[in-house]
């Protein structure tokens, strides 16, 4: 008993007073990308270097800095490394979550208005009262649907004493019937589709859905795997070629995320900030210079 207490004193208190205090991230951490608008000419170095197919040519400016789709991005930094113009850099901002699939598209910061279109998205304004019910208490159930265990591990870690998820009234439950929503990781494998749909059906309404990681949003590196359904993002072209019928099952079951946390895997602070943003808490989700692609605009794949 005394031994335990003595060790307890040595281990100290390690919970970070977040969001009042900011976490100390690695100097090499790659957070939300920032793009500068440059004339690229025929240079396609970033497209060639990207292992995730995350770069898109802007329909309105084909010869300039492309769009970066955080839905697919694995934040490896390869594009930034090869860009001769230094047009792409990864900031240290870990607040990367967005409330829509389109909100994950990052365009070049507008120098003089061009390319700007995204509205500042304060979570309180964006989410409104939709999830007000869950302000004081939010119970979530996690489903790994083909995840590699990295997103799972960095979601699980929120329960440890550094993050202390419980102080926000948030808890992961053992049963979907006790949950207010699901957190899904992984590209959704064909083999896991039925279990995911069943689990979602077992969550009482109103319910919410969180997609964590590039796989869960777009299929990530497994976007083209016939055994995977391309995640929950549901944007055309992101569906695994082998399984359109099964992918439809996901849509029919209403598995459309309310919040998207990109990354491979996202930093735990990104996940925590994302979940809090869902309730309209925390700082703006999407910075005002992010290009939002509306229904009228088309994207040409590079």
């Amino acid at each position, binding site marked *: 008993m005394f*031994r*335990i207490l003595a*060790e307890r004193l*040595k*281990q100290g208190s*390690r919970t970070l007073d977040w969001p009042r205090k900011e976490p100390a*991230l*690695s*100097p*090499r*951490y*790659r957070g939300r990308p920032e793009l500068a608008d440059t004339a690229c000419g025929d240079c396609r170095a970033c497209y060639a*270097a990207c*292992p*995730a197919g995350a770069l898109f040519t802007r329909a309105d400016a084909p010869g300039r800095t492309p769009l970066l789709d955080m839905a697919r991005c694995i934040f*490896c*930094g*390869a594009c930034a490394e090869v860009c001769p113009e230094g047009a792409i850099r990864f900031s240290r901002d870990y607040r990367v979550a967005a409330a829509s699939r389109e909100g994950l598209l990052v365009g070049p910061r507008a120098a003089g208005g061009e390319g700007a279109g995204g509205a500042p998205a304060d979570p309180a304004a964006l989410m409104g009262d939709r999830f007000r019910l869950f302000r004081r208490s939010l119970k979530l159930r*996690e*489903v*790994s*649907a*083909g*995840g*590699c*265990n*990295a*997103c*799972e*591990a960095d*979601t*699980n*870690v929120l*329960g*440890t*004493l*550094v993050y202390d998820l419980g102080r926000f009234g948030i808890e*992961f439950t*053992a*049963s979907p019937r006790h949950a207010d929503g699901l957190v899904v990781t992984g590209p959704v*494998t*064909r*083999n*896991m*589709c*039925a*279990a995911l749909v069943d*689990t979602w059906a077992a969550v009482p309404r109103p319910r919410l859905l969180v997609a964590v990681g590039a796989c869960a949003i777009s299929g*990530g*590196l*497994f976007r*083209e*795997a*016939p*055994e*995977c359904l391309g995640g929950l993002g549901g944007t055309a072209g992101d569906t695994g070629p082998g399984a359109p019928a*099964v992918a439809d099952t996901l849509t029919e079951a209403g598995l459309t995320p309310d919040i998207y946390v990109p990354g*491979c*895997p996202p*930093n735990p602070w990104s996940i925590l900030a994302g979940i809090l943003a869902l309730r309209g808490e925390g700082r703006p989700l999407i910075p005002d210079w992010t290009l939002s692609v509306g229904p009228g605009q088309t994207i040409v794949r590079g």
Partner: protein
Amino acid sequence: MHEFDYRKAVALNEVPVLTAEALGERILEHVRDGWRVLAYFGLPEAGGDGAVGLCCVLAHDAEQRLAAARTAPLTAFPSLAEACPQVELFEREIYEEWGILPEGHPWLKPVRRSPDAPGGSGRDFYRVDGSEVHEVGVGPVHAGIIEPGHFRFQCYGEIILHLEIALGYQHRALMALLRPRAAAEPVAALRLAECAAGDSSVAHATALCVLRERLLGLGELSERCQRLRRAGLELERLANHCGDLGAIAGDTGFLPTSSWNGRIRGDFLNLTATLCGNRFGRGLLAYGGAAWGLSSEECADMAGRLAATGRDAAGSAKTMFASSSVGQRMAGTGQVTEALAREIGLVGVAARASGLPRDARFHAPLSSLPQAAPGPRTERTGDVFARAEVRRAEMEDSLTMVEADLDWLGRHPEDAAERERAHGMEKAALAQLPPQRLAVAQVEGWRGEICHVGVTGPDGDFLALRVVDPSFHNWTGMALAMRGGQISDFPLCNKSFNLSYCGYDL
């Protein structure tokens, strides 16, 4: 069988083509002589007309030798599963992936098709009959934040007679994606290999890099690269062993260590992030080297944090092992005997806990860097206690090794000439692969030996690229460890093995 040095690629024409019967006999002979099966797979003929033969790679750990043999294309072969249980799962995989029938296999259950797979008709489970026998099914979705798998218990009262584990839910067809990319788009393939099992990102990336380097015959890398890679690998071991000890403590109801280790594990992950920006070590490895270096100041900063984290980890583990209730709960739970471990081909922590000195850092070292211990850390009892104790001891060794690496890196800043050489090596490592070669990479990940086997065809593409995660060998051990135990032992036992679902499902 063609025998060769584990570091060397062999020309495919040196690997003898045997009949299926002869291959089976050779495998049995070798296993009797102390060899074990590393990989056993279908090897498609060059030309892609769908004809597939078999290829088997074995290892003799004490002699640091490998052996390989293959067959001509075939559609069936005599099963060895009864005589040599460690090939049982490989034979099912061969049947599932290439349709080659292992004749006489006791039960050709699916390997990676879950019972819920679309178009599937469910699956038969082994069933024990009797008036007081009952069956308990768990999963695929479990109570914690954990990957999916289905567990089916056959119980008599409280006692588990049999546990059957059905996996496949995480099957992403990783090997099918990896095979063409590893030759044509090697860097993209490396990013994919890092997702084979997220908690073993560094180990799987190391294996794919080493495989390519061996196929190209690049020879040993610079000491700097070796130390950077080893630091990444050992930090991965520290983080996961630490997390596992915490999880075991949690399942014995000992909350202090459970709580502390959750935090300490994160500190180890953050040290990895200092190295390469990613907590799981993604992006650390590059073919022919390491993608990141460390300055003297960064080394000093990391060494200081490592020492503090190491002290916390040691104190936390000591508190746990000093608790008699923890010790009693772990002792005797989920036992695997040495004979059983050898028979089913266990690897990694689970094998060492049962007394088998299997550790690829010793039987297939990637470099000539000194180890922290004279040999693999082994225990004799093969229970949860032994698996926890192996982890505790290995954390001490890993700390010593990372300290040594940081110390060396801090004292040897990279100069321009060396950087030049390193770039040359990295460029050489991206060259087109030589045709008709077979090479093997064995990397001791924290869970156990990760094995990547590559066979190139006439144009330098991969005819076969096999990824064998330690979980592939060890899930059977987990199932057998539960016999005679109770369902309440299952979570604790499961934590002590901590096997990967996606690493098995791939």
